[in-house]
């Protein structure tokens, strides 16, 4: 699903919408000017571009997202897993855990997730 591939700027932008949606497009451009340094036209171009890709929707000057943060995160991590670890989850975890200690609570959570996933 290439649909969820977001470039850095796109991700930052969609992040703002996730925080504020539904949001008026003029309101959105004001936030973008402040946080991203974008001119109004840049913001509207981005809205149009992402609307075409089905990431968000702009109706009656109100912008809402069509994808969830989880969907994007899932796509990003799967891509990373595939690209850097050949799709091997254990290898990914091993690398990730190499120089770091887990707290008891984190370990419990992980254990629970693994149990749920294998049922």
């Amino acid at each position, binding site marked *: 699903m290439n649909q969820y591939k977001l*470039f*850095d*700027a*796109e991700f*930052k*932008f969609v992040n703002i919408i996730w925080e504020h949606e539904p949001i008026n497009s003029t309101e959105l451009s004001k936030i973008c000017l402040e*946080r*991203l*340094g*974008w001119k109004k036209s*840049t913001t509207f*171009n*981005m809205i149009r571009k992402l609307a075409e890709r089905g990431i968000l929707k702009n109706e009656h000057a109100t912008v809402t997202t069509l994808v969830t943060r989880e969907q994007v995160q899932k796509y990003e991590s799967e891509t990373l897993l595939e690209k850097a670890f050949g799709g091997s989850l254990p290898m990914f975890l091993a690398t990730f855990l190499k120089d770091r200690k887990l707290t008891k609570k984190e370990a419990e959570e992980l254990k629970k997730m693994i149990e749920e996933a294998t049922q």
Partner: protein
Amino acid sequence: MSSLFASILNMSLTASYVALIVMLIRLVLRKVRAPLIFSYALWLPVLIRLVFPFSFEGPLSLIPGHFVPGYFQAASHPAAQSESAGISEKGVSDMDRGAVAAGDAVSSVPTLIRTAEPVSSAPSALDLAAFIWVLGMALLLLHTLLTYSKLKRGIRFSTLVKDRMFESDRIATPFVLGLFKPKIYIPTGLTAREQHIILLHEQVHIQRLDYIIKPLAFAVLIIHWFNPVVWLSYFLMIKDMEMSCDEKVMSKSGDDLRADYAKTLLAVASRQSGLFSPLSFGESNVTPRVKNILNFRRPVFWMTAVTTVIIAALTVILLMNPADRNAGSIVDEGDTADADKQAVMQLVEQFGNKLRDVSLTASKKQVEKLMHEHYGEYVTQELIGSWLEDQENAPGRLTSNPYPERIDISSVEKTSEDEYTVNGRIMEVAFNNIAATRPILLKVTRTGERWLIRHAELGPYEPAAHVITGKVTGHYTVYFDGLIPFWDMPAGVPIHNFILEVNGGGLFEVEPHDFERYDIGHTVSIRFFYTDFALYGEVAHISDDMVVVNQPGIPVYKAYAVTGDGYTAFD
């Protein structure tokens, strides 16, 4: 277009010379480990030379005489040829004016290539070159625009980091862009430390206006794209710009940035493609820059001060043209400093250019008026008076063709404190070929503030020696493939053979198989075939468009048709 290109060529040539000197000075600066800002500053005279065709004259010029602007010239104005050199199509001089003068004791025949103006209207080599030049510029410009738009696309949705700094994951290396409000663009994923160092670097660029200088220099490069020295200069200049910027950042910073700076540079090492790149932190010269950074030492104040003065002086010197504007002409180059001599020679040359304006065959009153009008500025009133009394020995124009085009000076001698004796030749030109020369001796004397010719001796006309004819057009050169009309010969008259009278060279008979007759309208025209008959024993080489003559070879200037037996058509 050709003349514009010719002036670009001249600038390119002069600038190349300056650029080579700059490259030498750079080497010296590197040896003494001078700050690179000086190397960077030295490119200014090169840039100026590449853009402005004119400069000022000074005694300290490092440019050799024949490098002064004016070396190349669009061959569009025949009269201008006598003043400066043009470029020849094949590099072959069509008319070797130097050799004409060689009969005299001229020691410094110029080595510049000269050309006679081709009479035909065919496009010259210069026109062709100008066309290629424009084409090349257009292609480079297109390439630049494409690179630029690609770059623009990469930063379209860049996002603000702080101040004027934006980041984008679509670019690989940091750079500054924008002429009026320059912004700094960096790739995403850099650490705060790296961002800080890049910010320092780019801020120096912005302060020094490098973001304007670089595209400007690139525009100049596009104009001079045919010159490899300019390409080399451009890349060296950019290298100096970046490395001096690195040095500035480090000397500004309170603590030792070297290690972090070098690491940052390596982290964003350029992967850019395309010739044009905006100011970028990770320019391609990463290795020498890292070395330079690691070797950085704060410059000593007095050394900076001394170098500043030296570089400023060098800049001025490199912008200077040699004081002698005539250095490229027949004048002895060793003797250029003598202002009087220059003034005298200039006077004689100007006088030579006026000869054609005084028609000696006009009425006496008219001649008097013409002489005062055209010679008055250069010649004493007494001499004009004596010329009017003895018009036989006065210089001027006798026929419309040939006519006296100029005086070529062969020697200038100082005969007393206020007098020079000038020997030269009046060059009589017909259809851009030298038809004859006439020795002239002039005594030029100081009269108040200026110089005037007070005495003149004219020698006999001499047929031109060593003439190599120009392109044959059939218009005037009758010994090649052109139709010669015989207006007084009715069509249908039998012609048995031809007699050619070669100017000063006698008569030659033309065999029937060497010509073809055409009966056009009421008269007969003759076409000659290529043959060496007319220049018996003197022809070295014949090709389609030129005949090269070894010995005094003289253009045919009369042709006679012979009807019936014997030489009855002439006496």
